[in-house]
C-alpha cells in the first residue's frame, strides 16, 4: 500500500515538476573556470589566495588598474585621475558607477572600504598599510594621506577592491565580516549569484558595468572548485572546463599544443620555487654552508624540468618587474668546486638537514629533490618532508626544519619593496627563515619615499645584493607560466602577480 502511494507520488511529482524545472537549458554563453580551491571567504578585505581573488577581482572594481603587459603603467578604473603630493594622494572618481544593488558609488565608499580593510588588517591590507587617513573631499574626490611619502600607493591600490559603505554600515557589528564572507555587492563586471559549497560559485554578467566587454562575452560564469590538478587538466582537455588554473606544466604544454588548444605564456611570480634556508637552525645558520648549498644546486635540472620554459633567477626581483636590478646581477650557476670549498670552510661536512615542502606543488617538491640530490654530492644529507602548507611553514618557523620551498606573492604590480616586506623583513609572514638585516630594513623603508626612479633603482640593487650575498635563498628557477586555452574562446591574459587569474570580463567566445 505504502509502496503504491510512493510510486503514485513520484509519478505525480514527475508530472508537475516536469513543467517547472528543466535542468538542461542550452546555455552556450556559460564560462566554466576550474579553480584549484574553494574560497574560504569572498570578503575582499580577507581574500588571500588565488581562488578567492578569482571571485573578488571580477565582482569588485579597484580605483586604478594596470597594464598587464607593462605593470608600471597604471590605467584609470573607478578613479579617473590621481596625483601625489608628498604624503597626500588625491583621487577623482568616475561618474555614474553603481553597485550591483543599484546604489551609487562615491567617495564615502572608498573611505569606508579602506578604513575597514586597515581595521581588519588581513588579506591585502599590507599593500596599503602605510595609509594614515582617508578623507572625503566631495562625493567624487577622495584624499588619502600616508604616514610617509610613498610613490607606490596608486599602484598598490590597483589591488584593493571597493565595497559599498551602505553594506559596511549595515553590518557594522563585526565590520561586516560575517556578511562579506559569503555575500558580495560590487561595482564590477560580474555579479555574485550563488555559492554552492564544495562545488562552485556562480556569477552573472553586469550589463550596467561602466567598463567595456569584448564581443560575445560570457553571461554566466561558473567558478568550479577542482582541487585536484590532474582533474583540472583532464576536465580542460575533455571540454568540461573552459579554462583551468594550476595545470601541471607537462600537462599544460601537452594540452596547449594539442589540436583545439593554444598556449598562453607569460611572466609571473607565483610558481617560483625558491628555497628559503633557516637562518636560526644549524647547519643552515652557517653562511658558508648556505653558500655551499647555493653553489651546489643543479639549476640546469630545474630548467630542464620546466622543459626550458624557465631561466635561473639572480635575485629577489624578477627582471621583468618595473625597476628590477636583476639584469645587472651576476648569473647564478652551479659551481661544485666553489660549493666544496665553501663547505670545507664551514666545517660542516656530512651535515644533515631537513626541508619542508608545502604539498600540492610538484615544482616545489622537485626543487627539494634537486637540492637533495645536489647536496648529496657534497656529502650533505637532506631529508624532505612534504606537508600541508600551514604545517610546513610552521615547521621552519619553529626551527624544526632547515628549509622551506615557496613561490613569491607580491600582489603589487610595480612596488618592488613588497617583495622584501613579506620575505626579508623582520616579522614578515613569509620570512620563514627569519632573515634579518638592518640595512635592508632601512632601505626598504626608504624606497617608497624616493620619487626619482633611477635613485630607487640604485637602492633596490643594493637591497637585492644584501639578500643575494646572504645566501639566504636558493633561486632554483624562474619559470614562465604556461596556460592552455581552448581555441573556442579568447581573451585570456596572464596577470604577472597572481599566476593565473582569469579576468572574466576580458574573456569571450569565438
Amino acid at each position, binding site marked *: 500500500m505504502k509502496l503504491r502511494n510512493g510510486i503514485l507520488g513520484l509519478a505525480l511529482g514527475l508530472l508537475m515538476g516536469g513543467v517547472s524545472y528543466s535542468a538542461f537549458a542550452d546555455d552556450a554563453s556559460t564560462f566554466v573556470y576550474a579553480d584549484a580551491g574553494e574560497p574560504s571567504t569572498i570578503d575582499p578585505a580577507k581574500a588571500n589566495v588565488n581562488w578567492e581573488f578569482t571571485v573578488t577581482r571580477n565582482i569588485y572594481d579597484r580605483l586604478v588598474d594596470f597594464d598587464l603587459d607593462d605593470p608600471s603603467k597604471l590605467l584609470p578604473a573607478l578613479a579617473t585621475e590621481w596625483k601625489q603630493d608628498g604624503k597626500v594622494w588625491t583621487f577623482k572618481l568616475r561618474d555614474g558607477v553603481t553597485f550591483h544593488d543599484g546604489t551609487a558609488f562615491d567617495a564615502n565608499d572608498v573611505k569606508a572600504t579602506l578604513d575597514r580593510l586597515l581595521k581588519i588588517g588581513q588579506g591585502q591590507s599590507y599593500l596599503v598599510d602605510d595609509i594614515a587617513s582617508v578623507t572625503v573631499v566631495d562625493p567624487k574626490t577622495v584624499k588619502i594621506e600616508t604616514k610617509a611619502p610613498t610613490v607606490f600607493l596608486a599602484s598598490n591600490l590597483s589591488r584593493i577592491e571597493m565595497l559599498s559603505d551602505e553594506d559596511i554600515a549595515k553590518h557594522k557589528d563585526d565590520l561586516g565580516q560575517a556578511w562579506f564572507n559569503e555575500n558580495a555587492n560590487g561595482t564590477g563586471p560580474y555579479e555574485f549569484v550563488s555559492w554552492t559549497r564544495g562545488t562552485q560559485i556562480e556569477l552573472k554578467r553586469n550589463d550596467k558595468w561602466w567598463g567595456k566587454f569584448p564581443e560575445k562575452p560570457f553571461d554566466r560564469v561558473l567558478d568550479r572548485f577542482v582541487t585536484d*590538478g590532474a582533474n583540472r587538466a583532464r576536465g580542460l582537455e575533455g571540454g568540461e572546463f573552459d579554462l583551468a588554473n594550476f595545470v*601541471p606544466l*607537462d600537462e599544460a604544454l601537452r594540452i596547449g599544443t594539442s589540436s583545439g588548444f593554444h598556449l598562453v605564456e607569460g611572466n609571473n611570480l607565483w610558481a617560483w620555487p625558491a628555497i628559503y634556508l633557516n637562518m636560526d637552525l644549524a647547519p643552515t645558520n652557517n653562511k658558508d654552508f648556505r653558500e655551499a648549498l647555493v653553489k651546489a644546486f643543479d639549476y640546469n*635540472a630545474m630548467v630542464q*624540468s620546466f622543459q626550458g620554459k624557465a631561466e635561473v633567477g639572480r635575485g629577489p626581483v624578477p627582471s621583468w618587474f618595473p625597476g628590477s636590478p636583476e639584469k645587472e646581477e651576476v648569473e647564478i650557476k652551479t659551481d661544485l668546486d666553489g660549493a666544496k670549498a665553501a663547505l670545507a670552510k664551514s666545517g660542516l661536512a656530512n651535515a644533515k638537514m631537513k626541508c619542508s615542502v608545502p604539498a600540492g606543488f610538484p615544482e616545489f617538491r622537485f626543487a627539494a*629533490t*634537486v637540492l637533495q640530490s645536489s647536496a648529496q654530492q657534497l656529502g650533505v644529507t637532506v631529508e*624532505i618532508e*612534504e606537508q600541508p602548507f600551514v604545517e610546513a611553514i610552521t615547521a621552519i618557523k619553529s626551527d624544526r626544519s632547515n628549509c622551506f620551498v615557496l613561490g613569491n606573492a607580491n600582489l603589487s604590480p610595480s612596488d618592488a619593496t613588497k617583495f622584501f616586506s613579506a620575505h626579508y623583513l623582520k616579522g614578515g609572514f613569509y620570512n620563514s627563515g627569519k632573515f634579518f638585516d638592518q640595512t635592508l630594513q632601512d632601505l626598504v623603508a626608504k624606497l617608497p619615499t624616493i620619487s626619482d626612479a633611477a635613485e630607487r633603482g640604485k637602492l633596490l640593487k643594493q637591497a637585492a645584493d644584501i639578500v643575494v650575498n646572504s645566501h639566504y635563498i636558493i633561486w632554483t628557477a624562474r619559470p614562465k607560466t604556461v596556460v592552455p586555452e581552448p581555441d573556442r574562446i579568447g581573451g585570456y591574459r596572464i596577470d604577472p602577480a597572481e599566476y593565473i587569474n582569469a579576468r572574466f570580463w576580458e574573456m569571450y567566445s569565438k
Partner: protein
Amino acid sequence: MSISTQPTRRTIARPKGVLLPLALLVLVILAAFTLLPGLIAPHDPIALAMADRLKPPSLTHIFGTDEGGRDVFSRIVYGTRYSLGVAIAIVFASALFGVIYGAVSGMARQGIDNLMMRIVDLFFGFPALVLALAVAASIGRGLDSVALSLAIIWWPGYARLVRGEVLRLRERPHVEAARALGVSEMTILRRHIIPFVVQEVNVRVTTDIGYALVAVTALSFLGLGANSPTPEWGLLIRDSRPYFGSAWWYLVFPGTMIMLTATAFSLIGDALASRRAA
C-alpha cells in the same frame, strides 16, 4: 554418531590451477626485490637524470622514467622494501600484539575479559582511515607513523580473532583432557591452544599483508606516508598524478605492482585457508 574410522590423510591443498604457482612466483620476485634491489634494479632509484625525463617504456627503462629521469622500474624495485616492508611490519606487529592481547583476554576471568574486549570494541567503532589520518598527522608524516597508525587500527582484529579462537578452543575436549592430566594453564595455552590459533592467524596475516599494503599506499597517496624521493609505491602514484595524461606508465606500473602483490598475498592466504580446512 560414530566417528570416522577411516584414516584421514593430510591432503595438501590442490593448487588452483596456475594461480597459486603464479602467486608464489610473485612472492619470490618480491622477496628478491626486497633483499637484493641493487642486483635487480638497473638504475639508481634516487639520482636525477634530467636528460631522460618522462621517457616512455623502452629497453633501457622498461617501465619508463619519471619527472626526474629516474627509472620507474628501479624505483619500484627499491620501493618494495618500503611499501611491502611496512605492510608486513604493520601486520606482524599487530598480529603479535593482537595474539598476546587476545590470548590473555580469552584466558582471563570474565570481568577482565569483558573490559579488554570493550576496549577492542571501541577501536572497532572508529572509522579506520579517519583514525589513521589523525594519528599520522599528529605524530608527524613518514612511513614510521603510517606504520604505527595502521598498526593501531589493525591489532584489534587479531585480538578479537584470537580471543574467539581461544574461547572456542578452551572448550575443546583435548584441552579439557590436558587439564584433567594436570597440565598447567600456561602450557595448555602454549601447547594446546596457540598452535591452533596460529593456524588461523597465519591465514589472516597472509591475506592482511595485501590489505595493509593497499592501506599504506593509500596513506602515502594522501601525503601522510613516505617522503619524496623515497620510491614508496603509493608515493609514486601520488607523484605521478601531475603527469597523468603525459606519462601513463608512471601511474600504471606502481599501481599494477600493488595490485599484483596484494592479489598474490590474497591467493596464498586463500590456499593456506583451504589447506587448513582440508
